[in-house]
């Protein structure tokens, strides 16, 4: 049986964070018949994956997402430089024989990069020069992938090695290209998975599932400035109270659920227990400390999770989102949200005979109980 680590999180985000739709309005979802603000799981995962907290903790074990691998391969061959240097944007000297025949280099780039995904293709001779001149980043470059491809560090090293052999004049076969899909240990791929539509053999099943974050309370996002006119036309009884409720300010208290399949994660990381633990720790830290899309307005957008409940065990995992089907209302939205969450957990334990409560730790910042260090050591101890 697999061991699951479940993370239930309550975090209050200011509105600047929210994941916006094409009109600039926060994304929404209808839950229990009422409208809630939603932050998509992609947005959450992206913000964690790209956070410093995450990349610092996992240096050297994170892959690269690019559409331009073919372009870079060709560049590496033609300039006789290391692929890894080119990917990192390093200025570096010539380290190996240069491939003078651009056509040859182009063919190799096509051959190698197509193993990872479909490439744009197109006329090589005419359009090639033009598009390469315009910019490497140009989407129309015939060497670019049609879709973003996630490369592991091992794969990049493998390609680099292959390029070295090619420029050294060695014969390289198709088999060598296929073997590039080495068993990798890229943490981000191991956690969040990889899907290459054209080459299922290269896929990795995600070890982590992340729910969309939804507000625990009712949040009419619709531009209600029109509806509010009636309110404005009357004297406000509470005028001058001079207090902005946390829940009121559009913002919101969000529930997020994360489920890590520890065994699958370890398997994805070639059985490396130490790396797997580092990945889990980095994920918990990033999830609780990094807000989504903080970049848009780096100002008001940073907040830590206020509440964290972490459960581990081999029982079938379940989300506790049902605790918020009925929107939390009233003065103490946070307190009631925690109460509802823990209440549902207890009632589920009773109803199903599960024992999630026994194997869990929580942290409540508002009450001042628990700590992230406790939670992490609880999760990591076997």
């Amino acid at each position: 049986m697999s061991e699951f680590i479940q993370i239930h999180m309550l975090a209050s985000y200011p509105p600047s964070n929210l994941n916006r739709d094409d009109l600039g309005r926060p994304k929404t979802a209808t839950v229990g018949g009422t409208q809630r603000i939603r932050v998509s799981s992609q947005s959450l995962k992206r913000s964690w994956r790209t956070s410093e907290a995450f990349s610092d903790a996992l240096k050297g074990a994170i892959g690269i997402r690019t559409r331009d691998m073919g372009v870079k391969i060709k560049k590496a061959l033609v300039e006789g430089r290391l692929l890894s240097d080119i990917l990192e944007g390093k200025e570096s000297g010539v380290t190996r024989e240069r491939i003078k025949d651009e056509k040859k280099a182009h063919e190799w780039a096509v051959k190698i990069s197509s193993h990872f995904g479909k490439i744009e293709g197109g006329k090589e001779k005419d359009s090639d020069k033009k598009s390469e001149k315009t910019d490497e980043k140009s989407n129309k470059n015939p060497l670019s992938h049609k879709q973003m491809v996630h490369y592991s560090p091992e794969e990049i090293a493998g390609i680099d090695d292959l390029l070295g052999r090619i420029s050294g004049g060695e014969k390289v076969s198709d088999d060598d290209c296929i073997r590039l899909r080495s068993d990798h240990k890229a943490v981000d791929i191991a956690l969040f998975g990889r899907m290459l539509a054209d080459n299922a053999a290269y896929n990795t099943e995600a070890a982590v599932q992340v729910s969309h974050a939804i507000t625990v309370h009712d949040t009419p996002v619709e531009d209600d400035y029109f509806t509010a006119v009636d309110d404005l036309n009357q004297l406000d009884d509470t005028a001058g109270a001079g207090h902005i409720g946390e829940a009121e300010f559009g913002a919101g208290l969000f529930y997020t659920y994360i489920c890590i399949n520890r065994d699958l994660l370890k398997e994805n990381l070639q059985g490396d227990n130490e790396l797997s633990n580092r990945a889990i720790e980095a994920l918990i830290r990033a999830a609780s400390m990094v807000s989504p899309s903080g970049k848009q307005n780096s100002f008001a957008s940073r907040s830590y999770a206020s509440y964290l409940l972490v459960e581990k065990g081999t029982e079938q995992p379940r989300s506790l989102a049902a605790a918020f089907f009925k929107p939390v209302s009233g003065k103490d939205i946070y307190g009631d949200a925690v109460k509802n969450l823990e209440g549902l957990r207890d009632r589920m334990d009773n109803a199903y005979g599960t024992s999630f409560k026994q194997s869990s730790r929580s942290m409540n910042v508002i009450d001042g109980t628990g700590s992230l260090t406790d939670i992490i050591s609880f999760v990591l101890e076997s």
Partner: protein
Amino acid sequence: MFFSKMTLDREAAISGRFRDLVTGPYQVHEVIWDLFADHPDRKRDFLYRAELTGRDPVVYLLSARKPVYEGNVWNILSKPFHPVLQKDDLLNFRIRVNPVVTKTEPDPDRKRIRHRHDVIMDAKRRLNEANSSFSMSDLVQQESVRWLRQRSEKGGFSLYEDRVIAGGYRKMQFSQGRKKNTISISVVDCDGVLRVTDPDLFLQMICNGLGPAKGFGCGLMMVKRAAL
């Protein structure tokens, strides 16, 4: 005053008919002028804000007269707008502004000595000249808040600056109807919380609009009570 919400008729939305009518900011401007065109010499006595790019186009209008519309592309709902405000009332606001400053610079080659400067481009140029690095979104935030703050006292309000979000900085460029000259304005959308410091001044500001480019959908401050 009247506050109105114009939404697109379902059928018009599906057929895309309205896209022919409102192909650009100038056409929007004309569509809205038409709602109030009872005689040709009217001065503008309305403010608006148009959100036309998404799936559900909507225009908000604040006007001295009730809009009159007889076509079948838009649905317009109007409400009388007579806010009863007191000092220290808290309001959520949303406003699209054209943040410029007018600078007086003697320029011997030109007749005009007063120039309008986009405050964000201005700040960007200064930072570029000083060779300092900056993030564009921070710049938009800082400069827009500064711009709003400068107008707050005269507008009868004070900002909760850490609760103001400015974003969506963009340039709108369009030609003015049959005339050839191109108009170019940059706009920023701001959302936030404010406290009313002088109800009379505040209402005046709401009715007159804030900042320039009011004819092109800027300056309408929409407000609602910040509930507890």
